[in-house]
């Protein structure tokens, strides 16, 4: 196919133009990969710090009731749903912790340690002791590290936990640090102890559910809402801001990618139009020799296509190398506690490189269409030059 020969020869002979096109596309691709990596990293941080550090679903009492009475069967019902990783019934209450003369307001969570650990991965955040110790003693508690610091109580020490007119003496079995403001008020204690303290009986105030796919939460919430009379909310409901942020980020990135595509596309199209102008006479000669307009179109489109894979690979390499450099110097960014983003994080997934190659291909081909069309529409007489006029 002579078109391939001509296109290939154009590429290897015009080193400057070829290099310019390659670099333009490679930079665009590299920026896209970095942007994809940043978006993915930010999203993962948000999910890790927010979505995954909280239940995906919370089942609350029926309307008009303060507690869930049949929590065992309800937990079993929730656990039977496909994709459910953990179910933890909890009795959550407000109280006060006292150690010597110091008193701090607390939020206590009465739970079963084995179930709560599956739900919240508490053991991963333990900085002293083992979370499972709460199974063996009804008067053991795990405190948030900041709370323990405020109270001045150490592991092994004893403090009083009170709610209204009830009080219970507890021993500090361990300390947990979640890196959030909650740890200045957090107390974990066995479910039975919390039930005894609250005086409400064998009840819970909520059931937390964790899914293997957090995005399935709204669907499951809707189904449970329909089939039971309990109020079920998903993380998207009680973290509307985060859900909106994640969704908005995707849309903003789409606009960003489209802009990169447009800008790079115009630069490449402009370069190719200049190349066509330089080769006008040659195009006229090829037409005089009998090359059809379709062949001229093919030549320039093939040139664009041939440049795509190396440009995509170069861009992927640029993106990868810069990602590694950025990863060496983690930048702390304070964006507030609500989003959970504390560091600039890059996450490069293997499919990003496939996207990069496809992007380069699309960019080169679409940018090359107009110049190729211009070339094919040239009048051979005018193209060959004034000596034919």
């Amino acid at each position, binding site marked *: 196919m*002579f078109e391939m*020969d*001509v296109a290939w*020869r*154009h590429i*290897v*002979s015009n080193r400057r133009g070829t290099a310019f096109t390659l670099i333009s596309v490679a930079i665009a691709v590299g920026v896209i990969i970095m942007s994809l990596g940043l978006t993915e990293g930010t999203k993962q941080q948000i999910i890790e710090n927010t979505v995954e550090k909280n239940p995906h679903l919370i089942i609350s009492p029926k309307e008009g009731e303060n507690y869930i009475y049949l929590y065992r069967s309800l937990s079993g019902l929730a656990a039977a749903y496909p994709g459910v990783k953990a179910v933890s019934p909890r009795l959550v209450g407000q109280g006060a912790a006292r150690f010597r003369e110091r008193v701090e307001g607390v939020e206590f969570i009465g739970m079963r340690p084995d179930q709560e650990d599956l739900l919240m991965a508490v053991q991963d955040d333990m900085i002293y002791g083992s979370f499972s110790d709460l199974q063996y003693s009804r008067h053991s508690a795990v405190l948030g590290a900041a709370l323990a610091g405020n109270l001045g109580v150490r592991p092994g020490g004893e403090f009083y936990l009170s709610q209204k007119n009830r009080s219970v003496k507890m021993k500090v079995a361990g300390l947990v640090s979640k890196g959030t403001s909650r740890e200045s008020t957090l107390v974990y204690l066995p479910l039975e102890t919390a039930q005894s303290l609250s005086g409400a009986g064998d009840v819970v105030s909520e059931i937390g559910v964790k899914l293997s796919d957090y995005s399935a939460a709204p669907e499951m919430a809707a189904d449970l809402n329909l089939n039971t009379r309990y109020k079920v909310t998903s993380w998207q409901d009680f973290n509307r801001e985060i859900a909106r942020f994640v969704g908005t980020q995707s849309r903003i990135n789409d606009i960003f990618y489209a802009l990169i595509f447009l800008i790079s596309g115009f630069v490449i199209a402009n370069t190719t139009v200049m190349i066509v102008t330089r080769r006008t*006479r*040659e195009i006229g*000669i*090829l*037409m*005089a*020799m*009998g*090359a*059809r*307009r379709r*062949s001229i179109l093919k030549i320039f489109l093939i040139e664009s296509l041939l440049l795509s894979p190396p440009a995509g690979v170069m861009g992927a390499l640029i993106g990868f190398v810069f990602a590694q450099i950025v990863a060496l110097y983690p930048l702390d960014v304070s964006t507030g506690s609500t989003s959970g983003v504390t560091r600039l994080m890059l996450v490069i997934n293997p499919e990003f490189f496939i996207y990069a190659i496809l992007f380069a291909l699309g960019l080169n081909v679409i940018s090359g269409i107009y110049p190729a069309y211009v070339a094919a529409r040239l009048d*051979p*007489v005018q193209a*060959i*030059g004034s*000596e*034919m*006029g």
Partner: protein
Amino acid sequence: MAEDIIVIRDLMKIYRGGVDVVALDNINLNIEAGEFLAIVGPSGSGKSTLLNMIGLLDTPSSGTILLKGTDVTKVTPNERARIRNKELGFVFQYHHLIPEFTALENVMMPMLIAGTRKEEASGRAAELLDQVGLSDRVNNKPNQLSGGQNQRVAVARALVNRPSMVIGDELTGNLDTKSSNRIYELLRDLNRKMNQTFILVTHDMHMAEKTDRIIRIVDGKVVCEMNRDGETFVSNDACSVGEDG
């Protein structure tokens, strides 16, 4: 008597714009197979426009051009391209070889455009380069050849598909006298050996007199015609030699 390879009847070309320009005004012309013909005339006379019409690079405003019996003014652009490839060869003032390709590859190009296999095209191209005296330059690129050598490569390229005729437009316009003479001698030789039809536009009467027939065009009209009679030319009308160019 050889058959007519080109028959032109009532050919008109008018460039429409603010002012209409009549580039060709009712041209009637027959060209036989094997002719070695020159078209002369002053600048702007329409000789190159006529060549564009014969070469199917442009279409007339009216009239007909029969190429081996086929009215080529009515064919589709793709068919025109096919005819240009198969039936016509072009040599321009500037050789217009593709700079990235060698002499051999440039000569092969019309055959490759026609879809011929590379091996066959290469063999034919080498044979033609040998005929034009460049068998030792097959792998040289245009920038490694002289002007005269490049023009000889262009002649070989024009002949590669065994065209019905070769069209040349001021093909020695960029060459020195010695190279110009050499080119014309080459064409003369090819005309005799292969009975190849050549239609050459030139403003140089010295070169035109090397052909067998001279058509003179002024203001888009054929004003006179001269045919070789031995070492001289016989005109069928009053032609002023020396007014051209």
